[in-house]
């Protein structure tokens, strides 16, 4: 198996609304692919098509070299929905036993380990749990069978920072064991530490695909020069490698955003008598917004 997920021209349309439009992606086996987009951009619709909850208007989706509706394929997939709903007064423990039994005999040691890691009380009815605790139940259900492919819709939504860290560790463990991970998010920083590749979806269309290395390069491209007095930003505009110059900070500072080599900017700053220089890490969410602005254009 080369591709854990493969879609070709995947399209879902309801009347005039095109929720997913001509989506073609390939996720390699063992890869962690983050599907990023704003609310309503088509992330969850894509996940629902991968698992055959809804059928494509056009195009195809294959999961683990098979159809998402095939029980033999689903037995190898762990799924976390955006909002986990379980019937009636089902307790977390009953849910683990029931859903676990549909795939195989539940591994009690694995289950106990996950319950302990997430600090969950499994005896309470799921519908009485807080949003965060329901999320824990969903994550344990997704991870308990050691699935080959994890499809996680907004996995850390509702989790506190400590549990987010626990989730990332769990994800890293599964990835180290060879599992493929496909997750959706609208928070770039959330995926920074776990994803290998990012797909940006906007209005149902795949706007960009980048590796995390590409993204990280974009986060380090801001340099702040301090001068003895006010300096005209025009001196940096149009220089090779300079994307933007901002004089909006301290009166004696200029912030230069780079999209290439820093040589010309450094040379000019030296010529103008810069007294100090520091680099600033851009917030990943800023990069996320910039990329969406680019894709809009």
């Amino acid at each position, binding site marked *: 198996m080369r591709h854990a997920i493969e879609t070709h021209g995947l399209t879902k349309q309801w009347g005039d609304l095109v929720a997913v439009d001509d989506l073609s992606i390939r996720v390699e086996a063992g890869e962690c692919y983050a599907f990023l987009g704003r609310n309503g951009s088509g992330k969850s619709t894509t996940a629902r098509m991968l698992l055959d909850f809804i*059928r494509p208007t056009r195009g195809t989706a294959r999961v683990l070299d098979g159809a998402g509706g095939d029980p033999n394929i689903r037995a190898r997939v762990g*799924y976390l929905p955006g909002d*986990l709903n379980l*019937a009636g007064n*089902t307790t977390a423990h009953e849910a683990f036993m*029931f859903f676990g039994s*549909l*795939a195989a005999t539940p591994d009690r040691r694995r289950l106990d380990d996950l319950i302990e890691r997430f600090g969950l009380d499994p005896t309470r009815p799921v519908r009485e749990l807080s949003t965060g605790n329901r999320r824990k139940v969903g994550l344990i259900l997704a991870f308990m069978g050691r699935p080959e492919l994890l499809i996680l819709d907004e996995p850390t939504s509702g989790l506190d920072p400590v549990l987010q860290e626990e989730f990332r560790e769990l994800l890293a463990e599964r990835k180290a064991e060879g599992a493929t991970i496909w997750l959706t998010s609208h928070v770039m920083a959330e995926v920074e530490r776990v994803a290998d590749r990012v797909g940006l979806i906007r209005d149902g269309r795949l706007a960009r695909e980048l590796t995390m290395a590409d993204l990280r390069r974009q986060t380090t491209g801001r340099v702040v020069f301090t001068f003895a007095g006010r300096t005209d930003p025009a001196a940096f505009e149009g220089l090779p490698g300079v994307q933007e110059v901002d004089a909006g900070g301290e009166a004696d500072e200029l912030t230069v955003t780079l999209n290439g080599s820093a040589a010309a900017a450094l040379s000019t700053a030296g010529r103008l008598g810069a007294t100090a220089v520091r680099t600033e890490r851009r917030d990943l969410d800023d990069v996320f917004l910039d990329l969406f602005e680019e894709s809009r254009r």
Partner: protein
Amino acid sequence: MNPAHVTRVYAQWFRVRLRSTISWTLGLAAIVAVTAAFYPSLEGVFDDVEEGGGLSSLLGLSGDIDPSSPLGFIWTNLYANVVPWVLMAFGIALGGAAIAGDEERGTLEYLLSKPVRRGEVLVARFAGMISILAIAAVVSGVALLASAPLFDLTTAMTATAPDGSTTTNPGIDAGNVAAGTFAALAVGVGTGSTAFLLGAVLGRHGLAVGIASGFAIAGYILYTLSNVTGSLDALTWISPWRWYVEDAMFINGLDWDVALPFVLAAVCLAVGWWSFLRRDLR
């Protein structure tokens, strides 16, 4: 189809619905027992009911049923109306919840992310609906069997006409209760199956319950008004009440008409299967 999956999904739904099953079942059993308890004190109340009129059709009176006899009393007060109505209402609640209810709450989608087929879930829920209805029906029948001897309902009653002639009406026996309970269950299964079908096709709980309830009420109104006015008689064949009341299986024993709701249920399951396996989840 994996029988182990069907069994697990069936058992899980049964557990989820256990509380409401107990409530409906005990409620129906209580209605049966309380109604039976009124028998000794209602002698003569039905003397003025005119046979063949609108009131008599509402009460299920036809042919030579004497509403003051044990069989006639239980038929007119329970099995001609209350028991099938309660089982119909319970059937609609179960049929609506089976697919569409869980679909609207989002619980069905999560179940279908596991290695179960849609058809397995459909069959398990359909079997669950029928068996839960059967439990409610059987317990109500047992409640009648247990309470009947306490209120003189098992004793044959001899009535003397003004001309001095006498008629002996038998008391209730297990055969009457079994036949009446099975016929009422059949009506509940047929009506519940329409709600099940609508839920499987539409995925909308409110619509499924609303339309199925509308059909059930319209069928009753159509039958009773047709009896009063004598018009639209040809249309009453779509109402289960036509065969249910006229056959009066609680008194006369089972006949083949009781198979009609089960045929309808099989058609509902088949059409629901065809649609549910093809459509998008909501």
